[in-house]
């Protein structure tokens, strides 16, 4: 009991010291502060390691946040020990890798899709739009890396709001763009002759995706409904899901439905319809082949007809699975924090969902663009250093057509 008391007093004095030292420091230039904090942290880290200080001496989360900005730290987090330096550096490293991947992947997509004439189709506008949303998500990564080194949100409230708004716009936007892509593909594949969206319709839908992302970005930003706050290691920001009031609960429920359930429903519906129509087309073609007395045979050890349907199903499932991977962790964490047992929400477990979401935003270009034969060709042409080898389509046209290898029934006269 006494040890606990002494622990609390130690922590509170330390926090007070920290806040006073920060107050002094605030007068100095920003760079100097960063540098000093960095030195201070390094020194502390070394000290910790050398003297093997007991755990009791560790800081609690939010120790370095001055009193003026204490609002940024929900009391829930203050109960946890602050993560060590290496946690932050590790997080920064992971995010740095994601940043590079996202910029290379999505940058290539935007660059090639918007400059190549052959790729400028209405359907590809959605791919570009998705890449832009993903890039917006990547823009917040440098902020996080800086935050990780100072172990607090840089720019306090404003920085936090910007960070969270970027995340919200890109997250909700990419979710609904996924749904829009599903719709476009469904239209194109189910009626290949005249079903695909024209440029105007595609543009309207893209504007719509940005509007879709707006309510849950602007309202918390303006603090009209919900608010943005720090989460986890206090280096990332998101909407507030910890406040224990009715407003927050409704907000979390609404954002859950708006940015997770509705896009997910669209994605599931359109891809399942798409697979259905592919199956219908395949069946119709098989019937016609049968009527012409050509019997489809298994060609060279592989049933190609079946694989058409299976391949589509696989791609559709991959996209669905990626969506689930990206946003389910976030949904689960926020729902538990709001409606369930929030003791389960540790700083680490609340940092993880953001990593998932950002990882998927780096994978999007691979899933959507690399599957695109023309994009691969273009990439081969422009970036030989990438070592991608995509064959140009042959002029004869026979080699690439999916051939239903067929042969006349030998005994059809019998």
């Amino acid at each position, binding site marked *: 009991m006494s040890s606990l008391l002494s622990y609390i007093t130690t922590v509170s004095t330390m926090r007070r010291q920290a806040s006073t030292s920060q107050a002094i420091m605030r007068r100095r230039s920003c760079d100097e502060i960063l540098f000093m904090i960095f030195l201070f942290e390094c020194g502390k880290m070394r000290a910790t390691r050398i003297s093997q200080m007991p755990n009791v001496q560790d800081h609690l989360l939010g120790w370095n946040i001055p009193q003026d900005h204490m609002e940024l730290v929900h009391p829930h987090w203050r109960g946890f020990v602050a993560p060590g330096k290496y946690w932050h550096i590790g997080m920064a490293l992971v995010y740095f890798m994601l940043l590079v991947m996202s910029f290379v992947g999505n940058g290539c997509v935007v660059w090639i899709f918007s400059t190549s004439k*052959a790729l400028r*189709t209405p*359907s590809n506008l959605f791919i570009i739009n998705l890449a832009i949303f993903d890039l917006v998500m990547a823009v917040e990564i440098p902020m996080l890396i800086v935050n990780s080194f100072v172990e607090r949100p840089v720019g306090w409230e404003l920085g936090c709001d910007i960070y969270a708004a970027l995340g919200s716009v890109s997250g909700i936007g990419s979710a609904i763009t996924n749904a829009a892509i599903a719709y476009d*593909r469904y239209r*194109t*594949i189910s*009626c*290949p*002759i*005249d*079903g*695909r969206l024209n440029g105007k319709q595609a543009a309207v839908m893209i504007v719509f995706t940005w509007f879709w992302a707006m309510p849950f970005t602007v309202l918390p930003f303006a603090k009209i409904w919900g608010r943005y706050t720090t989460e986890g290691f206090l280096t990332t920001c998101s909407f507030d899901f910890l406040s224990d009031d009715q407003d927050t609960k409704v907000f979390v429920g609404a954002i859950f439905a708006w940015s997770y359930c509705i896009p997910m429903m669209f994605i599931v519906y359109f891809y399942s319809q798409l697979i259905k129509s*592919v199956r*219908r*087309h395949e069946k*119709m*073609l098989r019937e*016609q*082949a049968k*009527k*012409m*007395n*050509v019997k489809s045979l298994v060609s*060279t050890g592989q049933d190609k007809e079946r694989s*058409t349907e299976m*391949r*589509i199903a696989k*791609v*559709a499932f991959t996209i669905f699975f990626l969506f689930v991977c990206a946003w389910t962790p976030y949904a689960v964490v926020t729902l538990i924090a709001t409606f369930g047992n929030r003791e389960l929400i540790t700083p680490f477990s609340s940092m993880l969902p953001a990593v998932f979401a950002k990882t998927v935003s780096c994978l999007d270009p691979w899933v959507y663009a690399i*599957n*695109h*034969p*023309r994009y691969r060709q273009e990439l081969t042409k422009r970036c030989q250093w990438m070592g991608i080898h995509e064959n140009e*389509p*042959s*002029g*004869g*046209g*026979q*080699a690439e*057509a*999916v*051939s*239903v*290898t*067929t*042969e*006349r029934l030998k005994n059809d006269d019998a």
Partner: protein
Amino acid sequence: MFALLLMAYVAAVKVYKKTTPNGKVTVYLGKRDFVDHLDYVDPIDGIVVIENDYLQGRKVYGQVTTTYRYGREEDEVMGVKFSKELVLCKEQIIPAKKDSNKDYTPIQERLLRKLGSNAYPFLFQFPANSPSSVTLQPGDDDQGKPLGVEYTVRIFVAEGDDDKGHKRSSVALAIKKLQYAPPTRGRRLPSSLVSKGFTFSQGKLNLEVTLDKEIYYHGEKVSANVIVTNNSRKAVKNIKLAVVQHCEVTMVNAQFSRQVASLETREGCPITPGASFSKQFFMVPLASSNKDRRGIALDGHLKDDDVNLASSTMVADGKAPNENMGIVISYSVRVKLNCGTLGGELQTDVPFKLMHAAQGAGEGSREGEGGGRDRKMKRTKSVERNRYSDNYANDDDDNIVFEDFARLRLNDPE
């Protein structure tokens, strides 16, 4: 002397030829258009000439494939292919199978005599129910191969039955399968009589449209006699007429219509209550007046100069029209009476057929005959013999004009 030369030229038989890229195998075809006479289809007859000592134990195969393309290449996402290739028949040509008949078609006999010992004949039959060649005109911004149904004869050198052959030693010839009009056009005059009542007023507006023929040949004027009897209290503001091409893509169960000729008139308008109006209108549906309009169906075209609108699909007696395959074409004359914004429209469609005139004069006796393939073969031969009879009389071997085979497709990327 000059006149004699000219005579010889006129009497000459045109033969199409194409050589493999390595120059070792040459294929000769007597024609590129094969006519579906409903009860039988012209067989694909040709000759393969091999360079001395080229084969060295390898075999030469021939196959007829039909390619359905029912969606644009650029729209192929997720690994979907909007094209299917069906191998209708595949046979070994060299060495000749023992059971193959020695019954050659006239053109084969002539070519065999001319091309010597390295020439080998081949004969393929279109399977029953095979669809006609149709090309859907690509739009301005469309890339890739045009949509439609096309046929290809492919001759290739291979080691065995499973070997698909190499590009250098294979040759593909695009051919067309067409339908010609029956020799007699029939007496029936297609007509339609419709009437329309109005919600808040008594009396009816009657419209009768009669065409002067059931079957029109390509390039002919379509004449529609329009009789309007206005017993209603509304006035007819104007009259619109159009020749509509209906296109049913059975592979994906899609239908669409395009106007291929149209006119709008205010002649006799307004047709006031109690008045009547009668006039004959003429329209000429032509491919040349519909250049660059996307989705207009054309008879599968191999060269720029032989473009015409797709012929109506004919159905053999005793077969349901919905058993048709590939792309099914039909035409109608559509007449629309416009009764102003409140009155609405009265519209009717009168179906007709647009076809090529039947070939040859002596074919009238064909009707009503059934019979096996042998009989059909003989009949084909007799027709062919008619065609080439002059040359037989002269027995002039040099009267063969070789024409290099046209390029495979209209807008090959190369």
